[in-house]
């Protein structure tokens, strides 16, 4: 087996977070769950951050969540970037982007996962409003 060369390959080969990135390559959002306390967490870790448990497994997440907060990052041209904090339906919170229509965005808005590509070629989890324009 050849050594990973691109950043995307390195991510997928990571002994801790690899399964996340392998899922991402197929457009699937995966979360680590603790076999001891039965709680999911994100970002992936070698041990559960809630109880220290080592029996961690991976499950597909629903891809659904709600907006915990947001911040508009203006750009010289265009509409800028909408940074999101998303509370996943399963519990964990993560930083992401809102893509697509921003109309109606507020704290508590329902969002759903969609995938893009980051500047370094790795898969980029983003979200879009479930019901824009309301």
């Amino acid at each position, binding site marked *: 087996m050849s050594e990973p060369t691109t950043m995307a390959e390195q991510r997928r080969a990571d002994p801790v977070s690899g399964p996340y990135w392998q899922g991402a390559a197929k457009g699937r959002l995966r979360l680590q769950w603790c076999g001891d306390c039965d709680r999911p967490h994100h970002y992936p870790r*070698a041990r559960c951050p809630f109880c220290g448990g080592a029996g961690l497994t991976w499950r597909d997440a629903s891809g659904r969540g709600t907006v915990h907060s947001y911040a508009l990052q203006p750009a010289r041209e265009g509409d800028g970037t909408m940074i999101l904090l998303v509370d996943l339906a399963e519990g964990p919170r993560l930083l992401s982007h809102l893509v697509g229509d921003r109309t109606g965005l507020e704290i508590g808005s329902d969002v759903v996962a969609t995938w893009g590509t980051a500047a370094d070629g790795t898969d980029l989890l983003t979200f879009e409003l479930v019901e824009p324009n309301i």
Partner: protein
Amino acid sequence: MTDDVLDLRARTAIVGVADAASATGVLDTWGHALQAEVAHEALADAGLSIGDVDGLALAGAPLEAMQVAEYLGIAPRWSDTSHQGGSSFESHVEHAAAALATGACDVALIVYAHTPRGNFKRFGRGRDNGASHAYGPAFVEWELPYGAALPVTGYALAAQRHQSQFGTTPEQMATVAVAARQWAAANPRARNQEPLSVDDVLASPLVSGPLHQRDCCLVTDGAAAIVMTRAERARDLRGDPAYVLGVASAHSHLQIAQMDDLTVTAGARSGPRAFAQAGIGPDDVDVAQLYDSFTITVLLALEDLGFCPKGEAGAFAVEQGLGPGQVLPANTGGGGLSYTHPGMFGLFLLVEAARQIRGESAGTAVPGVDISLAHGSGGVLSHAATVILGSEATR
């Protein structure tokens, strides 16, 4: 006169050990995962679990204590990241013994991992997979790809949340910057001294919504220093001593997505402990230096330190006031918003707090100061440290 030095003899012990090594000289785990491995092994050796740990020491990169604590899922109330090369860990034991003996923490974890051979194999020359980034490999993997502007985006997310949750207005936030400018008007060394209005703040460009440029601290050159000594000796020196009546720190996360409640900072833990040590409350504070990296930072500090209830700092800033002649004189030299901010403002807070005890200031001395508070903030609302200084009359 005897020195007031703690007797640490037989007060603390090493109760668990672990190490990791390989005959090939290469380990297949590295970084935080390797630190977690040996940490759990040592705790198991001691008959303890990760949940028992409330103190953490490591000779790491800047901010690494927060990375490791976040990774392990612990929220220490004591940490020591002093870095003195190969003998660092002996120093950690010394510091941990003092901290343990005085009750600063109950279980201190000292941890170290470094894998240069394996990293070279895995990532090649000059590639460390983010380990050298100040915010650590987890930040590089999970937040950096989104291009968030550090640290302002994290504060913007907290400000947005505070506005939505408590009805805090942009005008109320701007009042913090206006008060700082009023103090700066009397500081001939302040970067910005001209008058500033709420409308000026709101009309300044959006940096990271909802924060405007005038909600954000300066970027300037600067330097500061303080000298401390024991209380018995301090009285024999030239100036009036500013006694450390209470001091405490705490941290909770590093990446903003890992902050439990965006409206509650670690100051909610450091503040009450510092006040308890000092035997006073927020009402006793005559003048306060509250880290003003952003206007929201000051509002959160006012609440977390107990100057007002949670959610009411916006109204406090407008109705009670932080400016000259108002209820809580704060950032009396103009603060990071108008005086200076060379990247880190924490030492400037202490300089101004001590000056106020002496009846001096970079700007305007507040009359009759006996209690002077300095409250620092670090990371992305990640670390807080509260120092309460007192005059001779408060000893």
